[in-house]
């Protein structure tokens, strides 16, 4: 112990001396060393921003592009800690998505133009440059980088932060890095990934000696997972052919697991010993591609301690009980049939009383809880409101919550079921809104689907994937750019690594893609959601990015169900969405250029998506519905008439 500690101290002193050039304190902890080198690298990033500000003034495109890449690479050296320290600041000013957004928490709607490296990447690598705008953006970037430098120096970095930040960076590399998400035009994704991976390796090196002393196998495994990643990045430099499945399976997932073991093994506290707030991430999960990765209870009003099988069963019963609807003929399952991946196979679901259709396509309920907001237009901020909207909609249940509560209380059996689930005396029990909400939450929360062949493969379980599926994963996460909106591992618009925000996109979907000429679907989407704070023009025709998990079962596709086949959907994307079929929306967020995918590549992507199917243990339906005193109601059909 003594010898190794000494060696370590000597090493760390050397490291510090090399980096900082001043006499180190008597004893520096790894987190202190990491912080010192972080601040030096942050200084280096600030210098590259200064350099960029100067270079863009020359309007020399070659030098400007080189200078931007230099700044981007320098950012990737610090991204892992910068974004951990201030995710909001990073997204607002340094490396946020190149899309306009709304100013937070102000009593009016103010559109903020995108700022930072991503929008600069687009502007500088475009065919033509708007130099004035580039100069303005560069100058702001430099100013903000300096500002953050003065704030980050105060961050009281400790070991827990370091391990959480390293693991968050793994998620970022997987979902935003290798996919090319934040390098839309420069294509600098793989070199940047090397910087990102190297940055967390350098940080981890500060713990290697202790780790090795305490568990040499663990230390060796970590070293080997890092080296596997570096080897791949060194040998496979072509963005289109980089083997992302191998990278995720051999480097990202193993490190995500091993670094957690490392953290706990070193006695470093867990998130849960420090923080009281709920978080979308389950910080105790060893795996990324599993239903353990995100904390389902964060996304609902239900607590883990309340989540009993009894309550889940009541939720399931409610889901299949048409008594909730005005005409006692329609249930949630009417549009969300377990046999069809909890959709109904129709472009738009049949409305109540068979009177036309509802306005949009029925989305799957599998993994539905993993959202910040519900519905294609994000109008409901939680599951309770989501169900209320369905109850209230004149085209769906055409009733209201009070009527439903009153109705359910007419059934002694329902009252007994609820009373038992909430450990209360049945004789004096009245079902209320909260009971109904929690039962629905318990059931919907149980519909988690993360055990597909792809999940099993990445977790290192004994399953093989066909070459087509493997290639499909690589295309989806790379050349085809699907993964830059359908983020792994949910493959939906829930944005990593925070998983606390849903994206909507403007694609330019046609009313009927099989008609020519194409006419844009008139549905205005998010701008007309009724959320007065979101009536921004860039939300016109904007719709939530759904999950592609279980997509094999959930045809037809898009918010209007206009596309019958996945091939048709893929062809639509391949030609640049609406822009490629003659629909020109000024605010289309999908890149309008062609993806250049061959037919075989499209088939591979579909094969991959079809390998994301998992409904095991999720499709059972109740055997009977509770009895009502009003015997007319007792003839109702499980799941409703349609």
């Amino acid at each position, binding site marked *: 112990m003594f010898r190794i500690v000494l060696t370590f101290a000597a090493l760390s002193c050397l490291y510090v001396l090399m980096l900082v050039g001043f006499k180190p304190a008597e004893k520096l*902890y*790894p*987190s202190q060393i990491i912080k010192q080198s972080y601040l030096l690298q942050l200084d280096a990033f600030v210098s590259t921003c200064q350099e960029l500000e100067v270079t863009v003034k020359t309007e020399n495109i070659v030098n400007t592009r080189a200078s931007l890449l230099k700044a981007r690479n320098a950012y990737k050296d610090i991204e892992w800690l910068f974004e951990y*320290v*201030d995710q*909001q*600041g990073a997204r*607002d000013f340094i490396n946020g998505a190149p899309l306009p957004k709304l*100013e*937070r*928490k*102000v*009593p*009016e709607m*103010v559109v903020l133009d995108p700022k930072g490296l991503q929008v600069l990447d687009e502007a500088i690598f475009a065919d033509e440059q708007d130099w004035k705008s580039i100069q303005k953006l560069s100058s702001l970037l430099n*100013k903000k980088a300096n*500002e953050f430098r*003065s*704030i980050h120096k*105060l*961050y*009281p970095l*400790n*070991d827990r*932060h370091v391990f959480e930040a390293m693991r968050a960076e793994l998620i970022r590399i997987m979902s935003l890095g290798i996919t090319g998400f934040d390098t839309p035009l420069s294509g600098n994704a793989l070199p940047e990934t090397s910087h990102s991976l190297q940055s967390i390796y350098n940080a981890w090196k500060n*713990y290697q*000696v*202790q780790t090795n*002393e*305490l*568990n040499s196998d663990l230390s060796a495994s970590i070293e080997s997972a890092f080296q596997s990643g570096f080897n791949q990045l060194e040998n496979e430099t072509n963005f289109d052919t980089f083997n992302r499945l191998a990278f995720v399976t051999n480097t990202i997932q193993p490190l995500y697991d091993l670094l957690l*073991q490392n953290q*706990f*093994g*070193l*006695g*470093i*506290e867990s*998130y849960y*010993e*420090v*923080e*009281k*707030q*709920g978080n979308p991430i389950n910080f105790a999960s*060893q795996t990324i591609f599993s239903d353990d990765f995100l904390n389902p209870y*964060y*996304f609902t*009003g239900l607590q883990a301690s309340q989540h009993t099988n009894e309550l889940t069963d009541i939720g399931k019963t409610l889901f299949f009980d048409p008594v909730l609807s005005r005409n006692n003929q329609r249930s949630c399952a009417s549009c969300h049939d377990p046999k069809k991946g909890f959709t109904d196979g129709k472009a738009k679901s049949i409305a109540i009383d068979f009177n036309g259709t509802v306005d949009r396509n029925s989305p799957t309920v599998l993994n539905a809880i993993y959202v910040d907001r519900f519905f294609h237009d994000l*109008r409901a*901020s*939680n599951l*309770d409101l989501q169900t209320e909207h369905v109850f209230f*909609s*004149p085209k769906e249940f055409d009733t209201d919550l009070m009527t439903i509560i009153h109705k359910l209380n007419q059934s002694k059996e329902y009252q007994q079921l609820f009373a038992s689930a909430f450990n209360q005396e049945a004789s004096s029990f009245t079902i209320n*809104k909260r009971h109904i909400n*929690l039962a629905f939450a318990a059931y919907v929360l149980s519909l988690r689907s993360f055990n597909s062949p792809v999940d099993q493969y990445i977790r290192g379980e004994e399953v093989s994937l066909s070459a087509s599926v493997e290639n499909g994963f690589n295309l989806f996460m790379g050349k085809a750019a699907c993964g830059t909106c359908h983020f792994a591992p949910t493959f939906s618009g829930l944005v990593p690594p925070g998983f606390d925000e849903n994206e909507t996109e403007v694609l330019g979907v046609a009313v009927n893609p099989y008609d020519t000429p194409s006419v844009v679907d008139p549905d205005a989407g998010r701008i*007309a959601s*009724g959320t*007065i704070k979101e009536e921004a023009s860039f939300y016109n025709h904007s719709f939530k990015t759904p999950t592609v998990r279980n997509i094999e079962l959930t045809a037809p596709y898009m918010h209007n169900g206009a596309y019958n086949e996945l091939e048709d959907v893929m062809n639509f994307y391949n030609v640049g969405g609406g822009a490629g079929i003659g629909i020109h929306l000024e605010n289309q967020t999908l890149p309008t250029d062609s993806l250049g995918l061959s037919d075989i590549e499209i088939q591979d992507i579909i094969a991959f998506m079809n390998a994301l199917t998992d409904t095991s243990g999720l499709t059972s339906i109740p055997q009977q519905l509770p009895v009502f005193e009003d015997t007319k109601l007792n003839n109702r059909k499980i799941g409703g008439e349609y």
Partner: protein
Amino acid sequence: MKKLYTSAFAVLGFAAAANCQSFPVEIDVTSWDTNDWKPETIVVPQSPIKSQVLFIGGTDMVQTVDQTGTPNGATVAKQWHDFIGFTADENSSDLGWVSVNHEMIQANDNIGDGGGMTVFKIRRNATNDSIEIVDQTLADNRSGKFFNVDFVNTVGETGMNCGGIQSTVDGRIWTAEEWFRSSNASLATDFTTGGAGVRDTADWTISSDITGDFNGSVVSKYENFNYMVEIDPREAVAVRKQYNWGRQGFEGGVVMPDNKTVYLGVDATPAAWLKFVADNAGDFTSGSLYFYKHDAATKWIEIDNSQLSNMLNMNDITFPGGATMYNRIEWVAYSQTSGKIYFTETGRDTPGSRWRDEKVEGAVHAPHHVARAAAQGTSADSSDYVDYYGRVMEFDPSTDQMRVFLAGGPEFHDTPDVTIDNYPSKHLSNPDGLSFFRSDIDGTPIEFMIVNEDLNGSSHGRVPMGTDNRTCELFLLDMNIENPTVDNLIRIAAVPAGAEVTGAVGIDDNTILFNSQHPSSDNQFPYNNSLTVALTGWKQALAEGSLFPTSVEEVANSNAFRVYPNPASREIQFNTTTDVAIYDATGARVKVARNVKYLQIEDLSAGVYFLQNAEGETTKLIIE
């Protein structure tokens, strides 16, 4: 995989590496007698302050009146609680009426479209110092506990009921309609999507007793929004929209002790500071309206408020008239101690572009913004000017002078001398709700300012760094302190995760009410809904002196590590900033905090614990 994980844990768990700043996962507590309360034992008594949920949005039933086609009935209350107004009952032993705003615009057949308010009456149960909701029957025959204020049948729908006014004189209540509406389309949204707001957007014919050309005038529906609206909390009805105070995105205001003068705040950038003076005390249907211009000889410039067109287009008068511009004025309150008026200027990251046009028109920046911008090497209307943290302003009605009373922050980019070692433990960012709480300590009156945070974001050091802190906080400030700083704030409550703390108001010498708005839906019921909460027991807490951290300061010079119970908030304090770990009675680590001077332990159940500091010193901790 799982197996390896477990074994790694077992092998490594106990032996914390010397080179990490880690506390042992377990400690040996066998040498401690858990029944023996040694002198070094820290006892954290139960706080005398009790928290009680009074009103749960989306759950409690409100009694409603006839709306078109929908008869009297009851339905679940709206959410998004904001302002709380309190009207004392002078004629019975009940405490009085509580009025709660709902900051939203939503269609509702029973309650009425738009936002709204809920009122209820409370009394104190002296036997256990709890608050009870009083059953009432109103003049319109509604009976129950919670009542929806009828706007639709009286003054027209209201929207985004945000702040308001509780008269310092007699508890009259006004609700403020924030979120300035500029078209009918922005009120009414697609009903079929389920996200409807205000469905009736036909032109509105004003029916009003206010002096001027208001009565009988016809306005577009949206022009009947964004007023201060008086209600009668006793009967749960609206009284009048205050057309003569102008149409603005109002947030706060104060009725002065003369019962004539009203100061008004607008949540906008720029915001003008407004004053109304009634002709006759207590009658606000007639009087004069002014805007503040700090650089004018008279300071107050009158607006002709008898003209509807003037009142609809206030900004066309105030800013070209040279009004002084503020950055989002929120709540306004009157201090009996100082006789001055305070308001929160909540701040906005980059206000520059928002008030540039008005400056060209002739408006002037408030002097503190000019000075701040100059210190940042820029001007107030430049996009470089940042105003992240906000502040509390003080206005002296006797001199018409304004000054910054309490600056939010700390402003890290302006204070290069801040280091980790002197990193401040308290941050005040984006103050919003503001009111006063008056009590006494052994007969000596004391007045506290209540400051509610509503964070605009988490970046730029707005929340303490190093923790996953997204929680708005509720602070008290002793008004006897001259020139207070953020360090003088006493933190009294943190609301559930994701929530904005708002509406806090002292209703008597023992009770503070506050709202927890838009909490995260993952909180446990009822904390996943908007709530009105009562904090009682203040008299005892004040008498014990447990609110004041001075006891820590007294021994701050002591070299020994000291832990102080703070009974008021179930928070322990240390005489030095340190790392600590808390172990349960079996020696298992349950909590770790780093670089802290205060530690909240209210989530730990009563029992015996052990506390270890960074130097490895262990102390027994009893939580009662």
